[in-house]
C-alpha cells in the first residue's frame, strides 16, 4: 500500500495484517473480523504516532525524501488556479528542475517558484531530480523581477537536494546564478513567503528561500549540506550520514528553535505522504494567514526581509 521506511516496520506489519484480514473477510473465508481489524487499526495508529512523535533527524530526512511525499507540482495544482508556467532563462535554456510562473491563490495574483523532484523515473529525469542548473535559477530570477514589476506577491516551494553539480552547470555559472537569485529574492519590493516542503538542500534551496516569512513542513529538513555530503567530508564516509544529520540540526523543530524559520506546518499523522491533501491544505492555510499578516504589517517588505535575515543568529 505504502512505500514503508525501514523504521516504519511495526506499522507495516500491522497494516499488512489488517489488509489480510479484510481480504479474508471479503472472500468469505472468515467471519466477523471487524473487532480484530478495529483493534489492529488502533494498534497501528498508536505505533505510527509513537514512531512519528520520536523521529530522529535522520529518520526525518528519510520522510522528507519519501517518494510518495507531495512535491511542488502537487501543491501548485491543489492550491492555485490559472497556473501558467513560464519557461527559459532567455540566455541558454529551460530547466525543468525549477517550476516558475504565475497563478491565482484564493483569486489573487501570485508568482510561484519552486523545485520539482518528479514522481516516477520519467518525470524525475525530466525534472533532474529537483537539482537545478543555472538556467533554473535564472528563470526564477526572471519571474521574481516580473513579480516585482507588477507588484505581485511571491510564493516559493523549496524541495531540492541541492543545485546540480556538473561540468555544464559550473561552466555556465552555477554559483553566480544562485548568488543572483539570493540577491534578487532578498531585494523584492513585494511580500514573499517561502515553504520548505521536503528537502532544503544548501545553496540550491536558499536561492529561492529568502522570504519575509519562511515556514517548514513538520518533517522537512533544511541544511547547509546534505547529511551524506557532510559525512563524506567529516568522516570520509558517506554512510555516516545519520551521525551528520544528528549533529547538524536540520529538522524544522531545530530550525525554529534557532529562529531561522518563522513557523512549522503540521503534517498528518505518519507524514505528508500518507495524506497529501491534508498536508497541502495546511500549507495553504499557512500561506493565506502569512500574507494576511504581512499585509497588516504594511511595511517596506524589502527592508523587513533584510533586517530579518541580518538578525538571524544575533540573538542566540
Amino acid at each position: 500500500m505504502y512505500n514503508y521506511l525501514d523504521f516504519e516496520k511495526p506499522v507495516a506489519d500491522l497494516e499488512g495484517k489488517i489488509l489480510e484480514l479484510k481480504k479474508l473477510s471479503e472472500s468469505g473465508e472468515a467471519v466477523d473480523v471487524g473487532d480484530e481489524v478495529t483493534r489492529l487499526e488502533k494498534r497501528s495508529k498508536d505505533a505510527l504516532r509513537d514512531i512519528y512523535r520520536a523521529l530522529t533527524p535522520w529518520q526525518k530526512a528519510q520522510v522528507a525524501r519519501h517518494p510518495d511525499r507531495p512535491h511542488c507540482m502537487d501543491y501548485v495544482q491543489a492550491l492555485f488556479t490559472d497556473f501558467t508556467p513560464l519557461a527559459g532563462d532567455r540566455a541558454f535554456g529551460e530547466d525543468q528542475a525549477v517550476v516558475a510562473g504565475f497563478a491565482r491563490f484564493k483569486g489573487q495574483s501570485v508568482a510561484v517558484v519552486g523545485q520539482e523532484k518528479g514522481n516516477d523515473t520519467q518525470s524525475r529525469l525530466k525534472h533532474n531530480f529537483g537539482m537545478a542548473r543555472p538556467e533554473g535559477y535564472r528563470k526564477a530570477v526572471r519571474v521574481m523581477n516580473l513579480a516585482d514589476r507588477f507588484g505581485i506577491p511571491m510564493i516559493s516551494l523549496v524541495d531540492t537536494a541541492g543545485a546540480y553539480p556538473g561540468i555544464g552547470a559550473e561552466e555556465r555559472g552555477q554559483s553566480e546564478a544562485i548568488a543572483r537569485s539570493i540577491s534578487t529574492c532578498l531585494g523584492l519590493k513585494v511580500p514573499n513567503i517561502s515553504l520548505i516542503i521536503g528537502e532544503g538542500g544548501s545553496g540550491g534551496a536558499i536561492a529561492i528561500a529568502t522570504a519575509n516569512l519562511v515556514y517548514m513542513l513538520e518533517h522537512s529538513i533544511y541544511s547547509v549540506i546534505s547529511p551524506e555530503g557532510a559525512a563524506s567530508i567529516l568522516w570520509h564516509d558517506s554512510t555516516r550520514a545519520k551521525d551528520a544529520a544528528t549533529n547538524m540540526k536540520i529538522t524544522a523543530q531545530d530550525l525554529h528553535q534557532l529562529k531561522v524559520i518563522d513557523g512549522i506546518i503540521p503534517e498528518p499523522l505518519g507524514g505528508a505522504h500518507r495524506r497529501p491533501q491534508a498536508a497541502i491544505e495546511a500549507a495553504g492555510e499557512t500561506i493565506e494567514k502569512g500574507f494576511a499578516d504581512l499585509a497588516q504589517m504594511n511595511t517596506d517588505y524589502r527592508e523587513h526581509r533584510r533586517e530579518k535575515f541580518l538578525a538571524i543568529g544575533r540573538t542566540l
Partner: protein
Amino acid sequence: MNWITNYVRPKINSMLGRRDMPENLWIKCPETGEMVFHKDLEDNQWVIPASGHHMRISARERLKFFFDNGKFETLENPKAPVDPLKFRDERRYTDRLRDAKSKTGMEDAIVNGVGTIEGREIVATVQDFSFMGGSLGMAAGEAIVKAFETAVERELPLVLFAASGGARMQEGILSLMQLPRTTVALDRLKEAGLPYIVVLTNPTTGGVTASYAMLGDVHIAEPGALIGFAGPRVIEQTIREKLPEGFQRAEYLMEHGMVDLVVSRLEMKETVARLINILLKSPLEDRIEEVTAKNDVAPAKSPESAEANAASN
C-alpha cells in the same frame, strides 16, 4: 593528531611559509619544483618569480602587500555566538576553533582593513584560508557584514579577497544563513553607489561563491585560482568522468564569462585602484598628485611600517 592532520598540516604550512619554520629558507615551487629562496619569495609577494605560481598568503600579509606602505587600520570584528549547535564529529568544534585560533593568531577567517591604495581610501576584507579553510561561519559572516557597513558609513569602495572552501559545516544552517546575510550587506553598498570589487584567490568554492564572491561589480581572479560552486571531487563522483583540463581555474572562468580579469598579485593594487578611480570618476590630476606624493615616502613594502602598524592594531 591523527594521520589526516599529520598528513595535511605540513602541506599547508609549507605553503604559508616561514611563520612556523624559520629554518626552512628554501621553498619549492608546487608547479615546477624549482627551489626559491624565501626572502626572494617574500619580496615578490609570494609569487614564484620564474613560474608565476601564486602561493597562498595570510590575510595580514595580503593587506600589507595591498595597502600603500603596508599601512592600514584593522577593524575590530563583531562578536558572534560560538558553537550554537554544540557540534562534534571526531572532536568538538570548540576544540577545532581553539586550535585554529592558536595556529593562526586570528579570531576567525576574516580580517578587515581600512587604508589607501595609490592614495585612494578603501575598505578591504580578506578571507584567510589557513583558518579552517577560510570557511564561512557566523563570525566570518558578521565580520563581512561589518566591512560593508563600514564602507557605507565612510562612503568608501570595498575590495574583497575571497579564499574559502565554503560554508562552515560545524555551524550548520546558521552558516548557510551567511549567504543571504552578506548579500544584504553588499546590496546596500551597491545601492549607496559604491564600487564592490571581488578578488578571487585560490581556492574560492562552495557557498562563498554562491553569494558575495560572485556578486561583485567587477570580478578579478589571481592566476590559476580554483573557483567553483561544487568541488571537482563532487562533480567527478556525480558524472563519473574526468574533468576537462584547467576546469574551474581562473583562466577557465574568464573564458566562460564569470571573471572579468585574471591579474597577477604583483599588479593587483594598481589594477584595482585604476578601476575604482575610473568608476568613481575621480579626476586624473588628483591621482597623479597622490601617486607623486606617495612616491616621496617610504617604499611600499617597508617591513618596519607594516610591523609597527600591526603592533598598533
